[in-house]
């Protein structure tokens, strides 16, 4: 009953790790999950404080903060993407 968490770019740097697992009591939302994560460490709090600068994906699809998260999901938190160039 866990979710896999992935962090990228400065979110990863502030948290200090790129991946971790969290045990879930049951279904939740991405927003509620981020609130729980922010309490894990000072790094988590610094990385996750300003949700306006963050984006989320569940199972590799972009989602909003009210999206459902179930045990077994892969949840990624990262800044807006800046690929492609030019």
């Amino acid at each position: 009953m866990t979710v896999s968490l992935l962090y990228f770019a400065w979110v990863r740097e502030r948290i200090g790790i790129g991946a971790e697992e969290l045990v879930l009591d049951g279904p939740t939302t991405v927003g509620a999950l981020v609130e729980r994560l922010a309490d894990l460490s000072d790094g988590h709090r610094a990385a996750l404080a300003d949700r306006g600068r963050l984006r989320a994906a569940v199972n590799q699809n972009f989602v909003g903060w009210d999206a459902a998260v179930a045990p077994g999901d892969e949840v990624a938190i990262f800044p807006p993407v800046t690929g492609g160039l030019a």
Partner: protein
Amino acid sequence: MFRVNIQSEPFDIHDEHWRLSSLGPDVGAVVSFTGQVRDEALELEHYPAMALRQMEAVLAEARARWPLKGATLIHRFGRLEVGAPIVLVLTASSHRQAAFEAAAFLMDWLKTRAPFWKKGADGWVEAKAGDDAAAARWGT
């Protein structure tokens, strides 16, 4: 021939172009877009599984919208020096308008959907509002 690739090595635009231009007698137009590192060296981080998935989704969307004979999307990651190619979009069609529009669409969508992040000497590059606007012109 439709192909998506994510790699750290450089790509060979000549080989990639030739693969599409030689697809058959009904190819009349090939358009390429190459994005390259400007002004300062960069480190490109990405989310591999999601990047591949999003690039495949963007390519499928382009195929649904335009009559393409082939298309290639290549995105690099890792450390890239000034002038290094980062991204290649190639489209082949019978007519020029489909090839041009599909290539511009693919780039606009890649910019806003492919999970890549650039870090320069001054830190992480911020996303630009203009990119969302560019992607929005194609509808959703």
